């Protein structure tokens, strides 16, 4: 009986906590981004984060993109063959990869690789007093630790997405020409003719937004971690899970924004 009576209160607390978490995350992100445009700037730290984000994520993103393009070609061919519409395979591969698969899969891969690493590194710095030590050395942790990582995420993922766009389409091309009997000339002509600048723009915008989300979640959860090794582990999990969910949610929102008629 007591549990039932307390249900509205518990739900209310849950909603308030949720809204509070959104508010503090947004404030954290705005504060971090505001330091991007206010000196001093830590260029070395930005480059280190950028290289980690873009260069070292390249193999995993490339592999994901190629195999995804190959699977889409195979699946769309077997599906469209039933309706005699196999000529649309090139277009379907292109639109699936550029609009959706490249940005979303690159974002998810980077969330698992870079977002987790950011949360673990910052979380460890928090629980070993390194973040407090920064402040005692007259250095603002938001400026030194957070701003370079947010900027790196914002700028690096669009580049990765561009590479994933090309490699994903290449994967579809390989399967279509080597296995499904498409002519390479007609496949490429179809793809190029079907490509619209809006698709590429959406792909890059999604990359920028997802990159920012990955960095923000990694930084926020790591920076606010508590309670030793267990807290760092929890922060890492939260960073990956929240970034993944937000990527899928923002993917829908951006698609709706660009293509809803």
């Amino acid at each position: 009986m007591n549990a039932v009576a307390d249900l509205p209160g518990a739900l209310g607390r849950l909603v308030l906590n949720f809204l509070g978490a959104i508010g503090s995350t947004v404030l954290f992100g705005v504060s971090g981004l505001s330091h991007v445009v206010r000196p001093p700037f830590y260029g070395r730290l930005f480059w280190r984060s950028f290289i980690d984000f873009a260069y070292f994520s390249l193999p995993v993103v490339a592999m994901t993109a190629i195999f995804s393009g190959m699977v889409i070609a195979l699946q769309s061919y077997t599906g469209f063959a039933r309706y005699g519409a196999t000529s649309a395979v090139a277009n379907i591969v292109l639109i699936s990869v550029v609009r959706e698969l490249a940005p979303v899969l690159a974002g998810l891969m980077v969330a698992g690789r870079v977002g987790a690493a950011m949360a673990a590194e910052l979380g460890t710095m928090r629980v070993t007093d390194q973040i407090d030590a920064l402040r005692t050395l007259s250095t603002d942790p938001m400026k030194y630790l957070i701003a370079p990582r947010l900027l790196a995420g914002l700028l690096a993922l669009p580049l990765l997405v561009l590479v994933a766009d090309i490699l994903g389409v290449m994967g579809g091309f390989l399967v279509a020409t080597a296995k499904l009997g498409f002519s390479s000339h007609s496949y490429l002509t179809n793809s190029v003719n079907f490509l619209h600048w809006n698709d590429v723009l959406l792909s890059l915008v999604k990359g920028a937004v997802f990159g920012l989300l990955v960095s923000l979640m990694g930084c926020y959860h790591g920076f606010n971690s508590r309670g030793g090794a267990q807290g760092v582990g929890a922060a890492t999990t939260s960073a990956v899970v929240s970034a993944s969910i937000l990527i899928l949610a923002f993917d829908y929102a951006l698609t709706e924004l660009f293509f809803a008629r």
Partner: protein
Amino acid sequence: MTTPKIRIRGLKKSFGDKVVLDGIDLDIAPGTSMVVIGGSGSGKSVLLKCILGLIEPDAGSIEIDGLDLARADRAEREAARGEIGMLFQNGALFDSLNVWENVAFGLMAQGRMGRAQGRAHAASMLAQVGLAESVGDLSPAELSGGMQKRVALARAIASQPQILFFDEPTTGLDPIMGAVIDGLIVDCVKRLGSTAIAITHDMASAKRIGDQAAMLFDGRVIWQDSADRLLESGNPMVDQFTHGRRDGPIHMALRK
């Protein structure tokens, strides 16, 4: 009468229902080394973090050289706190940087030195804590606990601060290395003419480092006197603590 270097009045801090600091009053004269003792959870580290601005107190005032930090503007507050060097309990060295970059970090981050000058300055600071210049190229993970403490001390004194804080400087070290670190601390404080606050559980260390000593209990300062009197304070609580007696007026909260 001389203005205290650090004056604390009515300092209070709670975390939820847990009252950690319950009206701390403390004066520390310029050039004095104050040792703060007290049981685990008695608020010693919270006291230091409040002075450093890492934790916002609920009430009370903290003055450095007569400047009330709560009423000062941001630039004055940062300038006052910029004069504080801190040795953290576990060293808190930045593991993404090598040793010399750790030591010169504050000066380079503030733009007071470039990398070449910072490296030379770090070598000089490392020499002051008995470490060779070649240690500067190692990463903190390659150092022993004692060496990490020395590097952390070199980082704390690198900007030649007027105030030095030491959070349990000998914890985790063997007695000989503890005595070496204490000796280095005393040397550095004397050389710089700094005012120091050290918090410790180690009575031998407390007597070596401190001119004055204070004990925190239940969020308040219950005793303050010369550090020489630590082991014969005449206060039953202090005596129980400093002699490590199980029985006495202090009852540890134990779950049964």
